[in-house]
């Protein structure tokens, strides 16, 4: 199967800190991969590089065979861990922006997800709660028929009801031909949807593999492996 993401010798250094240290990772088409690790392990750095918001210090990163740039941005649907939409917008404006810039945006799909999330198009962005923001952002991201979805902590900081809705939306709207990269430290909630897992610690991959194979091999859930690896 073809790799949608190919990472070779990826290193990212800040002034006096190495955020990612010589990472090698391939992600196959059609897989849901969990990037797991505690805060500061390099998860967000890794996906920001994939989204084109950070530059690597060294190494090669390819998405669909291309270097990160305008072309890859048009096939990657990225959910940041913050409210990235312009404050002056209503939900409808945000939808129009996605329609204008991404040829793969499916308006009908967006409307369906939006009503599932119980959000209205005339709501103003700056009046939404944290949970509503998260739901809206996810609705926009999932309404694209992208080759690669990158979700950064999609359920962090939201209440349990919103969390369930968000997880259901991901499961129901995920396109099986696409790949999905999810970072999280809330492993228990997300492990059922992961095909592959990558454990990151202090910028290094310390464990990676097929989620089901790891469960069988170690005789425990991914969440328990996570606790064992990171000593929680």
């Amino acid at each position, binding site marked *: 199967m073809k790799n949608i993401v190919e990472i070779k010798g990826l290193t990212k250094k800040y002034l006096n800190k190495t955020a990612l240290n010589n990472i090698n990772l391939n992600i196959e088409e059609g897989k849901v991969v969990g990037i797991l690790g505690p805060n500061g392990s390099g998860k967000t750095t890794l996906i920001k590089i994939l*989204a*084109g*918001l950070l530059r690597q210090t060294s190494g090669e990163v390819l998405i669909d065979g291309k270097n990160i740039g*305008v072309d890859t*941005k048009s096939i990657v649907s990225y959910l940041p861990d913050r409210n990235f939409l*312009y404050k*002056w917008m209503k939900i409808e404006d945000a939808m129009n922006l996605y329609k204008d*810039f*991404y040829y793969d945006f499916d308006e009908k799909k967006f409307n369906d997800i939006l009503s599932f999330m119980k959000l209205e198009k005339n709501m103003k962005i700056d009046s939404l709660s944290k949970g509503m923001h998260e739901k809206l952002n996810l609705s926009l991201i999932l309404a694209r028929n992208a080759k690669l979805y990158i979700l950064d902590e999609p359920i962090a900081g939201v209440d349990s009801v919103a969390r369930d809705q968000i997880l259901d939306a991901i499961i129901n709207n995920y396109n099986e031909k696409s790949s999905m990269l999810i970072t999280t430290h809330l492993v228990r909630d997300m492990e059922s949807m992961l095909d592959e897992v990558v454990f990151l610690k202090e910028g290094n991959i310390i464990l990676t593999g097929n989620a089901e194979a790891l469960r069988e091999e170690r005789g425990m859930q991914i969440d328990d492996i996570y606790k064992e690896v990171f000593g929680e």
Partner: protein
Amino acid sequence: MFKYMKYEVRGTYRYILGVLSLVLILTTALYIYFNRVTNTSSEMSALEGIFIGLSVLILFGTALATFLYIVGSFRKELYEDTGYLTFTLPLTGNQIVGSKLVVALIWFIFLGVVIGLYNLIMMLIFVPVEVNFSELFSALFEIVNIKQILFSVLLIILSIVNILVIIYFSMTISRVTFRNKRIGGLWFILFLVLSGLIIYGGVKISEIFPYYIDINTFKIGTMDTLDKLYMEINDDIVLSADMDILTTNIASTVYMIIVTVLLFLGTGYLVEKKIDL
């Protein structure tokens, strides 16, 4: 690029219209107030001075407020969360910077034209003089010709674009060098240094290549030869006093255009290839 410009306009128009409304209200109030005062006072010249002073103050305030807002909108992309949207859109750095530049220019021109026209209307209403437009314009065109106006407008546009591009470049290079927002004010020091260097370069170049073009006649020469030429053609001492407006140093203008283009491309490159959010 036009799509992005559309969202730039939509994101800024409320503020611009707010500023415009405030300016028009203040201008109207000023005209009404001075109209009343001049009807009852004999000290015209002092009042006219105050009127002009206040008008200039309003215009300066408008220009500054608009400028700061437009500059702030670029800074927001670099330091706030909306950058996560802007810089993940499938747009090149040049398209993003170019859109912001064009929209900023559109707003400056829009504000300039509307405020200018509004002042003209106010003058027609409040200045107690019968105005014959055809006479006014023919008199106006006797003093300044259309080439001179176009040239001045082009120079103003080039200056605005030049300043904006230097600011954008300074902000971007400051962001690329230091990720920390707390030392974000560094861009202003960079802006001052860069502006100083560019102006110094322009002056030096005009000294090395002291050739000017006369916009009216398209004749090229040094300041001395053009001055003589002008006197001979026009035989008019008043017009020769306007030499600085009508002529420009060719080398320094070309230099300024090249610097502006290079800084624009540099900003686009940094935005696309070097920014770390």
